């Protein structure tokens, strides 16, 4: 866990990609889940932030 946070602070690719992946997956689940309309409403912004973050952080050093 400490390695993860240290990687985030030092702008390393691995942890940031992990964070972006979690956001994209969360956004897709929010988009397609049948339980909360509010989660569906905010799904797109979560997916968009995750996708843009993924594109940016894939250029970070390993």
């Amino acid at each position, binding site marked *: 866990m400490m390695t993860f946070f240290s990687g985030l602070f030092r702008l390393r690719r691995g942890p940031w990609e992990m964070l972006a992946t979690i956001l*994209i997956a969360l956004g*897709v689940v929010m*988009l*397609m889940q049948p339980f909360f309309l509010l989660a569906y*409403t905010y799904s*797109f912004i979560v*997916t968009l932030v995750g996708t843009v973050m*993924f594109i940016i952080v894939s250029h970070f050093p390993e």
Partner: protein
Amino acid sequence: MSSSPMECAAKVTPRPLANSIRGLSDRGIAWLFVAPTIFLLLAINIFPLIWTIYLSFTNFRANRIGREVKFIGLRNYERILSDPDIWQTMQATAHFLLWTLFFQVLIGFTLAWLINRKFKGNDMWTTIIVLPMMLSPAVVGNFWKFLYHPQTGLFNYVVQFFTGVDSSSFSMIGDVSLAPWAIVIVDTWMWTPFVMLICLAGLRSIPDYLYEAASVDRASKWRQFWTITIPMVLPFLMLAVLFRGIENFKMFDLVVQLTGGGPGSITELTSINLKREAFEKWRTGYASAYAVILFVTVFGLASIYVKALNKVKER
């Protein structure tokens, strides 16, 4: 005396063009060859994408060309993301996507594993299994519509034979609870061979000496399956899941032919709903925002899959 093809080409090249090409560097010539492709890519892919994003912020309607187009900011996105009907289509798509992927991977891998064993008529069975994939989705849709017919369809008679349920007592494409499964069955029938072929490629790429070494070490068949077969086939399997996942997320033709999105809107997947908004209701700006939402979702998922695929390859 006959001249070489290069000399012939040099002779027919117009003099000014030949002179100007002669003065270009290797990099310049490379750009000259790549430029038409880049231009086409920009014209066919990038420009429509940017134009769609622009339209998603407007109230443009393609059937009212003369009308003033107003910039309405994020209103289209707000409407889509708070509409319970579109939420319903997202759930229908999720149901279709998850179950088709589950069945296709399960059956596809099992078939590939069986076909990979050497037996008589192996090639003939492979050809027969692959046949559904070669048919047109429109043909498959119509064909299964007949099979699902409550009175005359073969499917209902098969169900009656195995379960004893009266064949005319249920309708696969007319019943709200059965229609989502009807499209899952047809897509699984049609596209399982594709997953099977990819898995088969993976299984055939495993060298025999790995199994021989495992046998020498007295590893059981079960252990060999989990420690050799599955890890070696996994990259191929993930590729198949990626392809089928993206294809099924934008599934249109098969479902339109089979159920037309009905009964009601229970099998109305996102692409069918999007087509209705764009070309039946002519809400082009709204439909553009809808398309952008779907695009970002597919793009995000594809990014995750490509990353996962690279990680598996590194192993």
